[in-house]
């Protein structure tokens, strides 16, 4: 059990973004969270990655309580993430963006950095080698020196993934890694996510709307709706769940739902 989430509740004023959500993720698992817009998927990731502090509950990572730890300590603990809306450092090169991911692994400080040749150089170059491996892995060699802000959407998403990998995390949280991509880019990205999971052995929690991809590559899927957990399980089990069909997948308009809507209209 790598991540154990217990009874997490989070509210913003009167809006209950998350209500008593519990789930757990095993080591080396590819775990997906799905649900309609506003279901609380990103809020859940924000709780794990430390941007939000939940009102109640506990989140344990490798047996250690995460709540109460600083956001900036997450990489040391072993958690990395990407963002739904691009969050690259736009004015830096791709290389520097990924090097920022090595921040918590580098030891040089501003003094040794200023005296580059007598301090930071050796370490910087070692980590540069590591970053180049990640660049090779994600096939972004050709944009290595480009400014991140000038890239296309699909490439930026890939750079963001590279940056998250550079953290060397045990658990990586991917917030809609394939949103807004064309078929080809999606295929590439899905391949990278699977490789990440199977070759690099990282545990992945992914939010994604493309059901084809989610059901194909996930080990387990959790469904959220209105901040509450609907169910979790193997992709096939989740697909078969009635509530999921209604809440999210847009089941055929059977009598049940029709009756519900009519009740609401009336």
């Amino acid at each position, binding site marked *: 059990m790598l991540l154990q989430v217990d009874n997490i509740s989070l509210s913003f004023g009167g809006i209950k973004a998350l209500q008593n959500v519990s789930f757990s993720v095993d080591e080396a698992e590819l775990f997906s969270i799905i649900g309609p817009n506003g279901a609380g998927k990103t809020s859940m990731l924000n709780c794990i990655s430390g941007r939000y502090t939940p009102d109640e509950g506990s989140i344990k990572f490798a047996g250690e309580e995460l709540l109460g730890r600083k956001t900036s300590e997450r990489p040391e603990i072993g958690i990395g993430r990407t963002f739904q809306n691009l969050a690259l450092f736009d004015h830096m090169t791709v290389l520097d963006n990924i090097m920022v991911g090595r921040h918590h692994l580098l030891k040089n*400080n501003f003094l040794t950095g*200023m005296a*580059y040749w007598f301090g930071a150089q050796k370490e910087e170059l070692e980590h540069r080698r590591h970053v180049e491996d990640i660049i090779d892995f994600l096939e972004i060699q050709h944009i290595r020196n480009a400014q991140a802000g000038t890239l296309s959407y699909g490439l930026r998403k890939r750079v963001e993934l590279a940056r998250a990998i550079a953290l060397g995390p045990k658990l990586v949280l991917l917030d809609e890694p394939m949103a807004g991509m064309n078929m080809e880019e999606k295929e590439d990205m899905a391949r990278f996510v699977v490789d990440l999971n199977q070759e690099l052995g990282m545990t992945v929690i992914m939010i994604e709307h493309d059901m084809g991809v989610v059901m194909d590559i996930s080990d387990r899927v959790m469904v959220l709706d209105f901040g509450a957990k609907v169910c979790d399980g193997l992709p096939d089990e989740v697909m078969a769940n009635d509530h999921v069909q209604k809440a999210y997948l847009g089941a055929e308009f059977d009598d049940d739902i029709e009756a519900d809507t009519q009740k609401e209209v009336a």
Partner: protein
Amino acid sequence: MASTALRPCGDFRTTYKTDQYLFQTKMIGWTAAAALLVLILAPVLASSYVVNLLILVGISGISALGLNVLVGMTGQISLGHAAFYGFGAFSSAYLANNYGVPVLIAIPVAGVMTAIVGMIFGLPAARIKGLYLAIATLASQFILVDFFARATWFTNGYGVDASKPEFFGIPLDTDEKYFYVVLAWAVISMIAVANLKRSRDGRALVAVRDHYLSAEIMGINLTKYRILAFGISSFFAGVAGALYAHYIEFVSVETFSISLSINFLAMIIIGGLGSVPGAFLGAMFIELLPQLVQLISGFLITIAPTVFGLIENGKAYIEQITVGTVIILFLIFEPEGIAHRVGQTRKSIKLYPFSY
């Protein structure tokens, strides 16, 4: 990609080390070396007027470079830079006068003292940013200047004398000799900041500017780096202030007004935000432009007294208006600064006659 396209043919980087060099191409390296050589020879070749200007540009450049770490790299606007500059000036003079610290040692020590004061005044940056922070730094400007006026033990209340330094018994009492002190500090500062930009903490500062939320997720402690930026920036302001004090030989309380703070901001905006040579180019622009305008207006009056003689009375105003206009025009046509323009010019020469 744009940056690699400008590399000369056959210049392949085969190690990561060569790819991280300070100077992108050999040509830039040689140009820098040539410029340094010219500057080393300047006191011998140039008139004392030019040397005086070079010293002032150097001192302002060091200070602007510090501000560029804070504003250009970290994205925190400071309106109190002149106060830190002043603190460095008074500290160095105080150390040299009261404790007999050799001036050349007092200068960096004053830098460190200013860095500490800068970090204290930078504490609000832990909680606020953007324009709100700019107003908070305005407070440091007024508080420190008020402190200078009242702390008679530190400043006499109006100003203190500062002595010229000695270098192993050789008094550096002339402009020509003092020039080398400033040049050494300017070169050290440029190299230090350029190195900072290609190492861990420099990247962290830029990351905090570009996207602080994701910087935090990447393990960067925002508070630490925001305050560190104030520390580094104030260090250079302090050193520059100290250099100024021992050059002018008298530190007056009135020098460090908010208009000087704004001048420093203008230098980095005109020179190029976040650029190392930009800080010095901007300093050159702001320091030399009024001189140039004076020269031209004087020249016009002498060659055509009938036409331009009429402006004799309003000469001072016209000069100020001209300086202001040139700055505005410059910002309209080159908002990214002189450093950017130099890069563009380099590209167009390199790619001539094809623009792609």
